[in-house]
């Protein structure tokens, strides 16, 4: 007979499920705990006999009707991509046309970066460097660079982003 005080019920059950010898020993000597464990066992047997109800017979049909009504996911992505690109270009245009100071300093900075980059990679680049220092080409470069960044971002958005509540 066990004279140990009864353990907390949760400790008893988790201990038993993990094969804790102390809990098993307590159970052998305690009729009250043994009866509780038996009640749980019976309840588990009843629970295991429950089954999922059948969905309505037209369930698949209803889902497919809704699926057909939404634009295909690929097309949605393309449209959101176009929208983001349009916004990006609008931003660039705004910088160029409303604030020439910002545009030219941005262009000058970019030209410097490009020139030094080119010097490192193509030591033989001769007359082209002079062309890069004009204002027009750097601006075009900034725009195309942003275009590439946006494209890259969109690609990442489509492949990587997976909201936790959806993929949980």
């Amino acid at each position, binding site marked *: 007979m066990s004279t140990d005080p009864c353990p907390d019920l949760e400790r008893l059950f988790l201990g038993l499920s993990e094969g804790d010898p102390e809990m098993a020993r307590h159970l052998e000597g305690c009729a009250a705990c043994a009866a509780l464990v038996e009640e*749980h066992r019976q309840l588990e047997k009843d629970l295991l006999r429950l089954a999922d109800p059948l969905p309505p017979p037209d369930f698949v049909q209803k889902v497919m009707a809704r699926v057909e009504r939404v634009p295909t996911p690929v097309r949605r992505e393309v449209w959101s991509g176009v929208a983001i690109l349009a916004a990006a270009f609008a931003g660039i245009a705004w910088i160029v046309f409303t604030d020439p100071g910002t545009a030219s300093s941005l262009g000058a900075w970019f030209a410097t970066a490009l020139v030094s980059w080119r010097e490192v990679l193509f030591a033989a680049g001769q007359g082209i460097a002079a062309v890069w220092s004009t204002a027009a080409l750097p601006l075009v470069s900034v725009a195309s660079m942003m275009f590439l960044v946006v494209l890259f971002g969109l690609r990442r958005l489509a492949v990587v982003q997976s909201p936790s509540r959806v993929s949980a």
Partner: protein
Amino acid sequence: MSVAEDATTSHPWKPDVLAARKGDPKAFAALVRAVQRPVYGLCLRLLANEAEASEVAQEAFLRAYQNLHKYDVERPFDLWVLAIARNLCLDLLRRRTRAPSENLEEMKDTLPSHAATAEETAIARQEHLSLEAAMATLSADDREVLALYYVQKRTTKEIAQVLGVAPGTIMARLFRAREKLRQKMQPQENPS
């Protein structure tokens, strides 16, 4: 067994997911057909209302379709949709104003009971709440873990994936839910 055959056996949903991604509606319909019962079943157990369960389960499949390109085909498809459905159910429960106990009578009629004979049902009504009805009075947290483990026979690891929690916490949750259910089933404590 070839590599392709092996992949199909261990990931039976994979070919249909890949085809559905390319826009094949029949492939997506096959996926819906394969997992509709557990998804609808979990929704009904959480919402205790057939119309709402059907609506939310449909919505879950629609979201799965829209996010199919983000789904990792190496993970079980049914668990992924179950997780989406469960989140939608919890959102709805949070928005719902009426108490779940008001749905008790409805629940008795909508869910199949293992105690099917009239005599058994009569006894159950006289002495204590039926198991299904008692389950319906538990919190959503308790109901979902009981439904996934006992009704759908899922492992603690699978349940952890659906609920987005650590697998080590599932056994304790199960015990607590079962203990609450046991107390609800006590005729002297909960006369109906």
